[in-house]
C-alpha cells in the first residue's frame, strides 16, 4: 500500500510545518533555501543514484510507487532511486537547516 510513499509525503509536510509554524524560520519562503536545495538535490541524484543503482539499498515494490525494478528513469524512479527518496532527502535537510537557523537566532537573542 505504498507505505514509503505515505511516510515520505508526511515527512515533507511535517518539515514544512515545523519550518513555518513551530520554528518560524520560514526557510521555504527564502531564496537562500531554494538555491541551496537546488545544489543539494543535484548531488542527491548522483549519490543516491550510486546507492540505488548498484543495489546497495533495495526497495520492496510494495512500499513504493514503482514496481521495485531498478531502472534509470521511469517506473517511479529518477536516477535509479524511488521518487520517494527525493521527499525523504528534502525533509531531512529542511529540518536540519531550519533547526540550524532557529538555534542561530536563539543564540543571538541571548547574547
Amino acid at each position: 500500500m505504498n507505505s514509503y510513499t505515505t511516510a515520505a509525503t508526511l515527512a515533507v509536510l511535517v518539515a514544512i510545518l515545523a519550518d513555518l509554524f513551530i520554528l518560524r524560520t520560514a526557510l521555504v519562503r527564502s531564496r537562500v533555501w531554494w538555491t541551496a536545495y537546488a545544489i543539494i538535490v543535484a548531488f542527491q541524484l548522483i549519490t543516491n543514484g550510486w546507492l540505488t543503482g548498484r543495489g546497495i539499498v533495495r526497495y520492496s515494490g510494495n512500499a513504493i510507487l514503482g514496481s521495485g525494478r531498478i531502472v534509470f528513469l521511469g517506473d517511479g524512479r529518477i536516477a535509479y532511486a524511488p521518487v520517494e527518496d527525493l521527499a525523504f532527502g528534502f525533509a531531512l535537510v529542511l529540518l536540519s537547516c531550519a533547526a540550524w537557523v532557529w538555534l542561530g537566532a536563539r543564540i543571538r537573542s541571548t547574547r
Partner: protein
Amino acid sequence: MLAFVLIGALPLHRYYRLSVFRQPLRVFLAIVPAAGLFIVWDLVATAAGQWHFDPAQTFAARWWGLPLEEYAFFVVIPLAGILTFEAVSVVCARLHESGPPAPTIIPDRTNFDAS
C-alpha cells in the same frame, strides 16, 4: 558515497570562511532532532521490509538491523546540507551588499562569527 559528500561539502567551510565548526554545540543540536527522527523512521521501515541493505556492499556490523554507515549517513547529510545552506547565505549576502535590501530572509551571518 559518504566520503564523496564530505569531500564536496567540507571545503565550503574554508572557501567561504564559514563559522559552522566554531559552533560545535549548535551543529550538534541542529542535527540531533532530524537525525533521531529519521533513524527511527529508517529502523521501522527496515524492520517492516520496505527497504533493505545489500550485505555484500555494507559493513557486516549492524545496530538494530541497520549497517553502521547508515547512522553516519544521518550525520553527514544534514551537515553537508547546513554547510551548503551557509555557503549560499554568504554568496547571497555578498550579492546584495551593494544592492537594495534582499526581498528574502537572509540570516545575518556576521553575528555568528566568534569575535
